[in-house]
């Protein structure tokens, strides 16, 4: 923080508004973000007592994720660990898929489309999100179902002989997750790409660059902050999604959030659920930071 930040802040906003902003900000960060997480952390480190009393501090809940219940036949908790790994890998795949899908859209919106075309295209992207997430997930379930539109078309065209089970193959789940967060990927990228001086693209072209090279050397490096904030959001949200896996997931495929949900809700074991949730949160943060390090993105760029 720069020296005299508060002074400048007050000078800019005035005493009353400045104080109000500070109070709101402190409340938001402190009460709505930090405190709940701290209480989750506290829960996760305490022994679960059915009577609702406060238990002793212990690492038992974390141990459970790795080694399973005491006295279990397997040396490790294979079921939960597998679901955890699968969730993370699937979330990464969804993120990459979304990135590949949304980059052309963002480029089209930011550099190619003009005026009316741009507005219509942006509206087409936004309007589906007026429908709530659960409804959208059910709609996808119907489309991907055995008697759904996609199977009907594929069978009608003679590509398939009998309906393909998109739900069991998790295709419906990935499509649902991907679709749920498209806007979160498109708009940060669009924001950055839109601010790229079109002359940069023309200059590269004039100097002999083919189109893919222009993207690789000019547009993508410039759009990196947008790409990384889009990816971060999509990854975090798909790893933490609950509705889509619940509705679109196959009978055998569990998402890690579903296990957390079961601990909290069905099992009533908040301590165990909190430990799982903390593990998911910390892992996601570590993965995001690792990717940011790998692609040399600064934390400050994310906000751009």
């Amino acid at each position: 923080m720069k020296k005299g930040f508060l002074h400048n802040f007050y000078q800019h906003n005035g005493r009353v508004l400045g104080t109000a902003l500070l109070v709101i900000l402190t409340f938001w960060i402190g009460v709505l973000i930090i405190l709940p997480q701290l209480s989750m952390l506290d829960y996760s480190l305490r022994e679960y007592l059915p009577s609702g009393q406060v238990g002793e501090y212990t690492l038992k809940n974390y141990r459970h994720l790795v080694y399973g219940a005491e006295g279990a036949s397997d040396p490790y908790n294979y079921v939960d660990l597998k679901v955890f790994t699968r969730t993370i890998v699937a979330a990464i795949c969804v993120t990459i898929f979304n990135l590949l899908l949304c980059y052309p859209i963002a480029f089209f919106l930011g550099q190619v489309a003009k005026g009316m075309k741009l507005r219509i295209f942006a509206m087409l992207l936004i309007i589906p999100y007026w429908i709530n997430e659960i409804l959208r997930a059910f709609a996808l379930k119907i489309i991907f179902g055995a008697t759904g539109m996609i199977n009907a078309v594929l069978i009608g065209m003679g590509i398939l002989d009998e309906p393909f089970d998109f739900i069991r193959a998790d295709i419906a789940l990935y499509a649902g997750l991907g679709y749920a967060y498209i806007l979160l990927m498109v708009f940060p990228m669009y924001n950055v790409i839109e601010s790229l001086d079109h002359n940069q693209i023309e200059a590269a072209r004039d100097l002999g660059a083919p189109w893919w090279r222009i993207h690789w050397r000019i547009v993508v490096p410039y759009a990196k902050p947008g790409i990384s904030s889009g990816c971060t959001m999509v990854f975090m949200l798909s790893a933490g999604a609950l509705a889509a896996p619940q509705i679109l997931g196959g009978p055998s495929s569990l998402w890690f959030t579903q296990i957390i949900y079961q601990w909290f809700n069905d099992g009533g074991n908040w301590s165990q659920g909190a430990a799982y949730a903390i593990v998911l949160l910390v892992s996601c943060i570590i993965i995001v930071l690792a990717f940011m390090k790998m692609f040399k993105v600064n934390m400050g760029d994310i906000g751009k």
Partner: protein
Amino acid sequence: MSAGVGVNLENLWIRFGDFVAVRDANVNINGGDFFSFLGPSGCGKTTILRAVSGFLDPSEGNVLIGGNNMAGIGPNKRPTALIFQNLALFPLMKVWENITFSMEIKGASAKERRKRADELLDMIALPGQGDKLPSELSGGQKQRVAIARALCAEPDVLLLDEPLSALDLKLRQHMRTELREIQKRVGITFIYITHDQSEALTMSDDIAVMKAGVIDQIGNGKTIYNDPSTSFVASFVGENNVFRGTVKKIIGNEALIETNRSGDLLTRISTANQGKMKVGDDAMMFIRPEALSIAPRGTQGDHFVTAQVTNEEFEGNSFNIFMEGEGGKEIKVALPNLGQSFESHKGEPLTLEYEVHNAVSLPAGELATE
């Protein structure tokens, strides 16, 4: 020095919907020349440049570079390099990467590129600045990097779209000289777009003056300045005093103009209009401020003008007198400052004299608006 590659525009039309941006342009640019398109903003000069560089397809007509028709050839395949008005340096690449971007595309090794970048940096007098980012350079330095980046592509034709307009006056004047020197050194054809007539005059071999999509005149600086072919050129290039009237008499290549306010004045008919002006035609005659001098008060004759002095100013290199002209326009006289003493004539009538060959008469037409 190579002979350079010429550029020809043949019957070039460029339309955007109903709007005609360029109307039947025919230009032959000699290889190795510094050629300028000069005109006010919106006259279509940048459109022509975009057609030459390949970013825009002409509606009709052809662009030929080195005799080859460029139709259907994209900007990345043409032997041209464009310097953008805002330079468009790549902000995330270092200076040396910027300069050698065209080599990177051709697959040159980093070592080769580094070497070439250093050579070019020496040429543009920025040695050792290769590892900086463009944002760390000053305006003039960025300018030079943009030139080096374009030259690195080894184009046959360098296209410049008002590249100096963002610089301050001193630097602009300095860069003019520098650009001209670079052009002579590399010997390739430069096509330069500008709305600044002094830029065009100081740097160019030839100039095309444009107005609303039409090329009014093509010629070297002296011709454009001394022998304009339209009233637009006469009024756009440099300062000029205009006198409106009708042709009273034609004597060879001279015309006696019966002006609305200043009596009958004898002038030279501009070369392009000789034989075309007839007695009774509406005409405009132009005299440069520096071609007027003070004569004994009240002298009568066909090369004397008498008018009331409204204002005077001292500009350093000249002493300017403003006199009542026609239609609210002033007649400006610029007397060179040779150390003499200037008498004030404010509010008095003053008689001016000019030499007939310095006054040009043209068919009445549009004037450039300031």
